């Protein structure tokens, strides 16, 4: 989607990242973290912010180095850059927000292996100018985040009757909590339904 040398309008990058080429429901990438951290909204929120930061900065850095990086070792360099930012985020959480760090457990470290980041570095940042790459990384991060947050709102609400830990009317009282929603299988159901809904919108647009 990013032919070499042609400049791409910022608006198109944004639209692709958020919807047209959304990393989660279009490309179905980064599913492990989508399934793993979406049972409580707060954890999802921190994960999304971390991923968006790491992705934007990684894309920027990969793009800055693109003219010096030899093609045959470019993936090694990408992994190195992504790992660098992930470790920094992990250290920041450990030092300044230890509770959240222990909530997210190993998932912060696993951002390194999130295919969305490497996918964007490889498909976009390695071929395009730094600013465009930064925008691309950021909006793909947002595209990922809005999907994850939607899933987590439904899971936490139906599974625990709360949102961000705050009790919701009806759901914390009368609603019979669906414990399966906060367990791993619930993630599969929620993700599948959401992909279905999002893709059927796309079909109506006829784009």
């Amino acid at each position, binding site marked *: 989607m990013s032919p070499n040398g042609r400049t791409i309008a910022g608006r198109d990058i944004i639209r692709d990242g958020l919807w047209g080429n959304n990393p989660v429901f279009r490309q179905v990438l980064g599913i492990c973290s989508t399934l793993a951290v979406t*049972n*409580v909204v707060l954890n999802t929120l921190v994960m999304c912010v971390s991923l968006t930061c790491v992705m934007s900065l990684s894309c920027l850095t990969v793009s800055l180095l693109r003219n010096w990086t030899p093609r045959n070792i470019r993936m090694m*360099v990408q992994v190195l850059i992504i790992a660098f930012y992930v470790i920094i985020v992990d250290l920041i959480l450990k030092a300044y927000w*230890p509770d959240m760090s*222990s*909530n997210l457990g190993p998932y912060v470290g696993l951002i390194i292996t999130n295919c969305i980041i490497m996918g964007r570095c490889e498909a976009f940042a390695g071929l395009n100018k730094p600013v465009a790459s930064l925008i691309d990384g950021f909006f793909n991060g947002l595209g990922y985040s809005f999907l994850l947050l939607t899933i987590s709102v439904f899971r936490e609400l139906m599974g625990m009757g709360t949102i961000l830990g705050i009790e919701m009317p009806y759901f914390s009282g009368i609603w019979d909590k669906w414990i399966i929603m906060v367990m791993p299988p619930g993630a599969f159901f929620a993700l599948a339904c959401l992909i279905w809904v999002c893709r059927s919108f796309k079909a109506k647009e006829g784009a």
Partner: protein
Amino acid sequence: MRDKPWYAVVYMFVVTAFFSSIVIGFAEFTKGRVESNKRIAFERSVLEVFGLSAGVPAGRIHEVFVESIREPDDDSGGAYVYVKDDDVKGYAVEIAGKGFWAPIKGILGLKADKETVTGISFYEQNETPGLGAQIESDAFREQFDGKRISLSGDPLIIKPVGAELGDNEVHAISGATQTCRRLGVFINEDVSKWLGEMAGKADD
């Protein structure tokens, strides 16, 4: 120059050295904080089982800990001791073992009679949020307050929700069967071991 075979090697070396040095520097910079966070989490956990941590800000936890808790020694069988006015008020027994996903570490507080539970708290766990992680919830932990551990058989028993409870029994968390089962196993192992050591002391 970029076509030369050594270019890739030198390039990778330089890039790696650059990013690693920043990470190492940053890790050094935050090391003290990370370690003190862990220490504070532990100390807060010990104070919590004796009801001493309520309303104490993170900055003062260590101060309160030093004031009222004595380090483990031979006489306490390896448990931290809660001392007030030179009297032993309780023992904080460390409990640790495998959870469903990752190790769980916590503290079980007992009164000086070595039988009455004052509380339980956890300072490290990685159970499923909303399910196993509920072991940290007040509702689950408050059940332990005032229980009397059994000196014959298992000291504490975790029973399914709805079962009738005896003096040393608490309810499990529904949906977190595995976490509760494993929790029951290592609480009993660690408490039995500690009771054994204390009994050994009494015989001396």
